[in-house]
């Protein structure tokens, strides 16, 4: 065994209790890092999957990002012309050539499309009003672009096809309204349409925003209630390969001019929150590892202080400064490696225990448990931070030890 290695091993063996405490400090840091980041990763992964599956991968709406060039600007192309508040000539908006767009998109490999009409709707029950987003769908085609039919808890999405007065609502909204399958709900729209719809299906996506604020009706019914016959204002696109979402959106927008938003754009704010969450979680759990580094700094500083004479004698008999530094760095790394190994086990066990806990909101009998994402990258990152802090924590006192003038110690001892 190399000399710095055997001296380091001897130092650690002679301070078993301190070594154990330092190892436990690192292990705890690594374990908490793995469990907490895994929990957050699991939540984000679940949320992302639900978000992506429950929604179209690309949504084409009847909006345009840039208004068409105005005659004044066209007349003076080099002039600084700004025309504000441009209103459409036809107030009944919609996607003009929806049939052509859908046919073209559906012809592409790995692409499924569904027409929808989105509009506001007021549900009225027991004297209370509930404002929701109502989406008129073709239930068969919609099933091909979202997992809505999989998320049905009662009734079915297909029932909208056989019951023109049907409505499908979220489980959370049904609970709020006290509505059950088969109940009739009064609905009204801003266009003046008012009628009674029967609950033919109840879904649960797990996303609060959808489960309380979104309802589905048959496309024809929606067009009639919104007073927009034969109009559709959204085309839902599902891709076999979701990584193509930006590419397909750009292609559609470039070709037909309508705003085509990939899911990354639609949920940009949620994804930004995820980034913020990650910064907070990685920051706080990473700082635990840094605190563990102080434990290593403490033990190595103590060893350096106690072993001043040994260091002096080793230097005097010919141990180079580099070997002195190496000795203490090895001690730090050894504590770090033992801590990482124990922390991996601790984190893995912790994650397994957490996975048995029921997920918040699953008390309604849905049977979900917390999800912990355990990836090699998380384990690697935890080990990397722990080892880096171990090396830094050891390097500071090691450098001091190497700089010690052996003569000062030897003179002091005599």
């Amino acid at each position, binding site marked *: 065994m190399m*000399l710095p290695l*055997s*001296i380091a091993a*001897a*130092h650690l*063996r*002679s301070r078993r209790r301190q070594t154990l405490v330092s190892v436990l400090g690192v292990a705890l840091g690594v374990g908490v890092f793995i469990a907490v980041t895994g929990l957050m990763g699991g939540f984000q992964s679940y949320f992302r999957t639900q978000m992506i599956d429950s929604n179209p991968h690309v949504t084409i709406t009847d909006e345009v990002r840039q208004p068409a060039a105005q005659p004044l600007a066209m007349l003076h192309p080099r002039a600084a012309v700004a025309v504000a508040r441009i209103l459409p000539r036809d107030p009944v908006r919609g996607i003009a050539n929806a049939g052509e767009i859908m046919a073209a998109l559906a012809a592409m490999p790995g692409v499924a499309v569904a027409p929808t009409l989105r509009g506001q709707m007021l549900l009225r029950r027991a004297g209370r009003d509930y404002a929701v987003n109502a989406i008129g769908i073709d239930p068969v085609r919609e099933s091909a672009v979202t997992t809505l039919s999989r998320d049905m808890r009662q009734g079915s999405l297909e029932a909208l096809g056989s019951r023109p007065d049907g409505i499908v609502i979220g489980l959370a909204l049904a609970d709020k309204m006290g509505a059950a399958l088969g109940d009739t709900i009064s609905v009204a729209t801003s266009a003046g349409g008012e009628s009674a719809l029967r609950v033919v299906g109840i879904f649960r996506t797990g996303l609060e925003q959808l489960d309380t604020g979104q309802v589905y009706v048959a496309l024809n019914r929606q067009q009639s209630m919104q007073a927009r016959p034969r109009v559709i204002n959204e085309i839902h696109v599902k891709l076999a390969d979701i990584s193509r979402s930006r590419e397909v959106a750009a292609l559609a927008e470039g070709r037909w001019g309508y705003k085509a938003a990939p899911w990354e754009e639609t949920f940009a704010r949620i994804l930004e929150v995820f980034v913020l969450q990650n910064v907070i979680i990685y920051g706080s759990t990473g700082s635990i590892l840094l605190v563990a580094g102080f434990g290593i700094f403490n033990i190595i500083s103590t060893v350096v202080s106690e072993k001043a*004479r*040994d260091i*002096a*004698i*080793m*230097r*005097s*008999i*010919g*141990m*180079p*400064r580099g*070997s002195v530094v190496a000795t203490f760095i090895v001690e730090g790394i050894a504590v770090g490696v033992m801590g990482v190994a124990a922390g991996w086990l601790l984190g893995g066990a912790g994650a397994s225990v957490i996975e048995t806990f029921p997920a918040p909101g699953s008390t309604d009998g849905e049977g979900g448990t917390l999800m912990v994402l355990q990836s090699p990258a998380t384990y690697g990152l935890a080990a990397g931070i722990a080892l880096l802090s171990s090396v830094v924590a050891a390097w500071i006192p090691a450098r001091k030890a190497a700089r010690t003038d*052996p*003569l000062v110690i*030897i*003179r002091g*001892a*005599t």
Partner: protein
Amino acid sequence: MTAHDVMDGEVLRAEGLGRVLQGAVPVTLVSGVTLGFRPASFSVITGPSGSGKSSLLYLLGLLDVPSSGEVLVGGAATSGLDDAARTRLRLAVFGFVFQFHFLLPEFSVLDNVMLPMRQLGRLKGVAMRARAMALLDSLGMADQALKKPDALSGGQRQRTAVARALANDPQVVLADEPTGSLDTRNAAAVFAVLAGLAGEGRTVIAVTHDEGLAAMAQRRIHLVDGRVVRDGPVGNAAVRR
């Protein structure tokens, strides 16, 4: 000029060596020392407390850097060497014995003796162990080889320190008050060992304030206020002017 000033065949030589501690009031530890040391010689440096005995020894052993003058090892100047080169030279040429044994308490007697050999890396495994055991045997310590230093008596620890100093077969053995923490019987035994090393062809230089032990050496260098005032055979040291 004495016989010891002749440079031919000298293992170690000090030329006009001086050491001044800088500070608000500079302190001169060693001044104008010129000495030569041949193989198979046992020299003692004596002098009153604070006369610069240990300081001179540390300068000769390249543990300290002189403020003036030069230390020549095997005829080669050392003033231009950096810390790493001086460290390598210490490892290969010198063996040190201090007043306190400075043995590493976590290691056995055998492991302590093998430390310099492991650092030098000239011998491997079995050969290293065999040499360490032979050294311990020559010092009557073979049966203590596997014990930790705290299980030994003061004399045994110092003999272990001597064995460690000899581990890399050094040309020069430097001993700084090696008997300072020992009783009379153990002190005499350690000095006898040092004298025996000179008989084997090594250059042995020891600092001591014990007149009785100094009488066991061949040459005596007496310092006062950092200067050599007497240098010659024991009992007949020439007075320097």
